[in-house]
């Protein structure tokens, strides 16, 4: 499943089950000497019906990865294959066709809706663009989709986005994204601008819609507690690279990368007696213009050693379905590894 099959034939060996196959994705901005690598060689796969969480701090490249998945941001190198079709190679018209199957939901729900248009027109637009159905059919679909996301179509259809709260706007964005019957939904921080109470509503809604419409989801966020709640598997990203990939319960139980450990530690637990056992992360993400040598996390890592500066740790399997890019993994996996080497 998540195994990095960094073989020579990146896309041809996919099974039917793999909806999205990302191989060694690199995204660069700028030209010449002023080049920033936002995503530096990311490989992962998403299976049908799965939710993959992509988690990391601002600036780690998770949103850029998200936009590169639909090729809104073209990949500099590497491939993004949707059901075996390499999106980086297909023609523009084919890409446009394929994009109807891959839809995105953005962070700021209010600014991602056109403020001057009525809700029913905003939601109907994907069908209008593709000339699908008659006016009546489109109206019917808008109604049913608004109902599916918990918005009353009679009441809301003729209103404009500013009349709705953030949570409601996010529901409308979701309705729009689902209009073209996508298979794959890419959610880029869909709840980070919302109150916790509304966040819970939207997360529950996404879970319901995923089941109802048979969706595969890539869920991008910075809050590991949120990501864990919605995801089957989680990929942790740091400065353009994946540092750990694991099943979401495994990741919480036996985080092997020090960065994952730090991310877990920084989540505020709603419990006054909770004492965090991990040291919180200090400092900020280094500039991607000049990433540290070796392991990119070493400048903030409490366990960093000389080897970390010299040699970049590859993403390797440490347990079934669990990959880590660290020379000195922590937690139960790290302990087991140490025991094995000393004996």
């Amino acid at each position, binding site marked *: 499943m998540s195994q990095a099959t960094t073989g020579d034939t990146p896309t041809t060996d996919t099974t039917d089950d793999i909806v999205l196959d990302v191989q060694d994705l690199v995204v660069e901005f700028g030209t010449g000497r002023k080049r920033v690598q936002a995503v530096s060689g990311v490989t992962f796969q998403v299976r049908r019906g799965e939710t993959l969480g992509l988690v990391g701090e*601002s600036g780690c490249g998770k949103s850029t990865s998200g936009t590169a998945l639909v090729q809104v941001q073209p990949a500099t190198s590497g491939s993004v294959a949707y059901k075996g079709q390499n999106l980086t190679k297909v023609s523009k018209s084919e890409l446009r066709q394929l994009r109807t199957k891959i839809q995105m939901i953005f962070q700021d729900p209010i600014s991602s809706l056109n403020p001057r248009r009525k809700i029913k027109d905003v939601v109907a637009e994907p069908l209008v663009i593709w000339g699908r159905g008659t006016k009546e059919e489109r109206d019917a679909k808008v109604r049913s989709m608004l109902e599916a996301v918990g918005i009353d179509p009679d009441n809301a259809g003729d209103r404009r986005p500013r009349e709705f709260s953030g*949570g409601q706007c996010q529901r409308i964005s979701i309705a729009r994204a689902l209009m073209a019957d996508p298979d794959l939904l890419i959610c880029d921080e869909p709840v980070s601008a919302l109150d916790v*109470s509304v966040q819970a509503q939207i997360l529950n*809604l996404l879970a319901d819609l995923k089941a109802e419409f048979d969706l595969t989801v890539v869920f991008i966020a*910075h809050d590991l507690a949120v990501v864990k709640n919605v995801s089957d598997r989680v990929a942790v990203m740091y400065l353009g690279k994946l540092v750990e990939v694991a099943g979401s319960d495994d990741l919480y139980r036996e985080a092997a990368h020090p960065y994952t450990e730090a*991310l877990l530690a920084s989540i*505020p*637990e709603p419990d006054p007696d909770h004492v965090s056992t991990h040291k*919180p992360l200090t400092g900020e993400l280094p500039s991607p213009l000049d990433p540290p040598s070796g392991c990119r996390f070493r400048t903030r890592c409490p366990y960093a050693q000389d080897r970390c500066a010299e040699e970049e740790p590859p993403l390797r399997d440490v347990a079934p379905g669990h990959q880590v890019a660290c020379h000195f993994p922590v937690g139960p996996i790290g302990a087991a590894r140490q025991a094995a080497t000393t004996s």
Partner: protein
Amino acid sequence: MSQTTEPIGSVSPSETASAADGKPLLIVEDLHTSFRTTRGTVRAVDGVSFEVRAGTTLGIVGESGSGKTVLSRSVMGLLPVRDVVRSGTVIFDGRNVTEMSDAELRSVWGAELSMIFQDPMTALNPVKRIGRQITESLRLHLDMDKKEADRTAVELLRSVGIPSPEQRAKWYPFQLSGGMRQRVMIAIALACSPRLVMADEPTTGLDVTVQAQILDLLADLQRDRHMAVILVTHDLGVVANRADEIIVMYAGRIVERAPTAKLFNDTKMPYTQALMDSIPRLSDPSGARLTAIGGRPPDLINPPTGCRFAPRCVYAQDKCRESEPPLRTVGSADHTFACWYPLVDGVSTAPPSSTVAVDLTLSKATTDPSATTQTDTKPADGAPVAEEQS
């Protein structure tokens, strides 16, 4: 990182002594703030009273539209004059803030009472170097000359954990990351060693890692300088380990107030419980269904009669919809709440005839999903959101 510097404009011994005797630094009494709009009067803060002691942290928690931002601005005296009706008193250190002239307010703001705003990008002046923005208040309130103010600004930037502060002081806000900007905001707010800092959602919009750093920084500085802090947030998780006391607000009113441990361990108000339950917890297995609060806060132009939370409360009874519960105590005097049927050990004391009452006590996965989304479909006549105005 923050303990390296001495508090600037340090606290005099007499002030520390007055703090120790436990007299409240801030007393808010029966505060009302309303906005006149074309649709009617929005009662954003509707009779709120509380106290803050020197050196302590008060958490104010509520959803968007609960009036917490208007409350913090009312306390600060930071409200527009037009179309605002305010009553009640705010006594800061023996002086009534609500009766102060603009000139008096200016002498208090920054020097004794300061504020950290939610969005550092819009709160900072985009065309002024960050050093200038710090020295501004130093020169005004502490009469420093340019050199001394510059030196102090660099020290302040260092104390909030900004690397190479000498160079950074010459930077503009856009050159800094969100976390760094919030550190600058804190440096500005703390420049004149205020005795009370109002932090309105200081970490909303920041990464969780940065959020932890900023909150730790604020706690360190608070300890060093013996400041009182009011931490306004929508996330109970943020205040759980930081506040001494927590106020939960709903629809412009306080619905529960207690010392932090009591609030979490002996929650009385179903709304507080619902807020806690809506937070995704790491300890829950993935895919666990969250207990969302259906619907959203009421329109503050026409708040419902009776308990304002009743339309969304799973335990609501006829009595709740008819008459409004007063703030009262049961047992300890420091724990007040407004509920006719307060929770006891997480279970409602509402009459057992109610069938819905079982809902919350069941596991999260069994809560009926349609119930939550259904309620949201019918907001009070689909009226536009009662926006918090400021």
